[in-house]
């Protein structure tokens, strides 16, 4: 961004985009951001998620954080709640895994079974 004008331009563009697009139900993405999560790479995982969402032009998401949920050995932890699908938690999430989870699960509704550590 060179100037604040760029920000205004982007704002107007996003606003137009939001008008055109039918609002889908939002996907809830929750990442573990306690001390262990942060030390295990949660910040980089979250960055990868946001970047993939940006590339895929998918913004019907709500991104939330949680503290330790007692599964520290499996951090970074990522929980996805998409309407119509079970709530699923992935463990030991890497940057590469995070990108695939966004494309396959968050956008295309395909749970990646091999990486799931908890499902409800």
């Amino acid at each position: 961004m060179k100037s604040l004008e760029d920000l205004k331009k982007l704002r107007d563009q996003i606003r137009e985009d939001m008008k055109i697009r039918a609002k889908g139900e939002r996907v809830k993405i929750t990442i573990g951001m306690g001390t262990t999560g942060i030390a295990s790479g949660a910040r980089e995982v979250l960055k990868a998620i946001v970047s993939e969402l940006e590339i895929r032009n998918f913004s019907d998401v709500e991104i939330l954080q949680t503290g330790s949920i007692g599964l520290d050995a499996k951090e970074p932890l990522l929980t996805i709640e998409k309407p119509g699908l079970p709530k699923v938690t992935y463990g030991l999430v890497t940057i590469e895994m995070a990108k695939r989870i966004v494309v396959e699960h968050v956008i295309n509704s395909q749970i990646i079974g091999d990486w799931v550590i908890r499902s409800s």
Partner: protein
Amino acid sequence: MKELALNILDLLENSAAARANNIMLIINENTDKIHIELKDDGSGINGNQNRLLDPFYSSKNKKFGLGLPFINEIVTLCQGNMDIQSKPGSGTNVSFNLPKGCIDLPPLGDIVSTIVTFITLHPEINLRYEHLIEEKYFIFDSQEFKTMLEDVPINHPEVLKLLESYLENNLKNLYGGN
């Protein structure tokens, strides 16, 4: 933690957990030392403040991480100093000074990712970030961005991308780029 920026993210999350509405992060560096200060208007911390540095003590049912004990460890190893001011109802102010020559001092690291991550997760909190290096400084205020964005959320993926490059460019300038 591999970077001080990760310790800072941990402390920022503490402020969020204390329901802060406004947070100020100040980083002041010169060739000899680095000073980091975090002020919030959250719920504050009750009781004996030395206990906050105890890794086996937690103020809120284990939700409080090891943020402060980890910082305290670096401060002790590097013979820096640390100050915590907090009262229930009037927020918390954590500040510490670390000598740059210390072999146990992690690099500051990716402060831009820390700020962007925090804003992604807590768009409602106003974060002011001031970074000073010698006589140069850079100030970022998320509230100004939000005012400009009006109804568009600051944590929209495209806004975050722009925010990241904005912070990166400004930090590059601060560290002596053109």
